[in-house]
């Protein structure tokens, strides 16, 4: 039996640039955290790193390194993470990172 994948209609679709970035960030997540078992989880702009993906701050540092490799000097990831207040790190979403990257590229 085959099923047609449907897009998640409840999540607002990111803009074209953001869409590509979201795909890249998703790939980076799979690359650095293969053991996390993301197969059954759709990564959207609303996905939160801690609550939804079970990541710790130490994983975010790893992810930062991977994104750094992918985007090079175009995006200053350490500065982005260093700018986050404690309250912003709590509840940090994939969308926040994607929008930051897209903003740097725009």
């Amino acid at each position, binding site marked *: 039996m085959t099923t047609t994948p449907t897009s998640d209609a409840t999540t607002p679709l990111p803009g074209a640039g953001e869409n590509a970035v979201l795909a890249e960030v998703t790939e980076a997540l799979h690359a650095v955290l293969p*053991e*996390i*078992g993301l197969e059954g989880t759709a990564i959207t702009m609303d996905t939160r790193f801690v609550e939804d993906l*079970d990541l*710790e*701050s130490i994983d975010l540092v790893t992810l930062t390194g991977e994104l750094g490799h992918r985007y090079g000097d175009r995006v200053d990831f350490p500065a982005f*993470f*260093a700018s986050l207040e*404690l*309250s912003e790190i709590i509840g940090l979403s994939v969308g926040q990172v994607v929008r930051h990257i897209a903003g740097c590229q725009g």
Partner: protein
Amino acid sequence: MSRFLFVVPPFVGHINPAAAVAAELTRRGHRVAWAGLPGLVEELAGPDADIHPCEVPRDLRRPPELRGAAALRYLWQDFLAPLAMAMAPGVERAAAAFRPDVIVADQQALSGALTAERLGIPYATSATTSAEFSGALAGMPKVDEWIHGLLAGLRAELGDPARTHDPRFSPDLVLAFTTTALTGESAAPPQTRFVGPALARRPDTTPFPWEWLDPARHTVLVSLGTANTDLGGRFLTECAAAVRERSPHLQAVIADLGGVLEGTWDDTVLAVRRMPQLALLRRASAVVCHAGHNTVAESLLHGVPLVVAPIRDDQPVIAAQLTTAGAGIRVRFGRGDRHAIGAALDAVLTAPEYRAAARRVQESFRAAGGAAAAATHLEEVATPIEENEEVAPTGQGEPGRS
């Protein structure tokens, strides 16, 4: 003879190493007293302990769903800071009554360090986990700033506002109950002494059906420590299932404080409220745990590799240390299922490098000296060699305490 006052938070994992060091100091003829939560300290330090009671916040339980930075904010803002305020009057009364030469202040019982500096009493820091000097917050300076702001507020209330050092690190001595074989490169300040795990000599009288252990199969111990009862149900169930799928060559003893496995006792899985962990480690082939520092250290002290599922606080840091050292595998606490846990168990049980790495850490722990080394460092704080200047020199080797 010197007098040592131990200031401890109401956490089992913080009192146990202190109790081992206190017992060693007592054995050497020193006087030891405690400031902390009376019932818990007595349970862990023994009925003869000289305990000066401290108030602690009434609700010691943290909302279990908090993880990551949310857990960190709660720990500091809603627990450690109120704990310091609540304990401080008791610590001060203890210092007045006992007149210690040295205060041994747990790193999380900040009232110990701050009261010591205000009263001008030398203090040593007892760091029962190494996360505070792991640099885990290195990429998030605003979190570190936030903690420093909170510490400065506590210092203004309880300490000596003229001091500028971080009260989590005594300028004289920081005892770290681990070694660099596990921590790797660390940001520990130079006054840190890595003494390895300090284990109590008191026999563990927890009953256990030793005849249940099957010498023909590997025994796996599963424990989520004493502070995670609310969260562990799903994970423990998956652990039990993973072991069942491997029952021809595996059996598991599961510490099930919350009773989620309802007293399972069959040929493969034994669920118990409490287990004599140290005695069982001598028979265990692997440990599955939450990467609490003490459980990891005790396992490695026995050369036993681990599968770890860190939940929060220092646990992700300790888990990273363990996997970097090569002595274990990390799985996800929130998402790890029987397949992930089972595959990790297969690896640590069959690939020899995990056990070899655990043995390397074991050797470093044994060489580090444990409670005896900690006691010797504390004696040096009590009778600093530099203070000889006040005494007319009588010869080489003063003050001669060793």
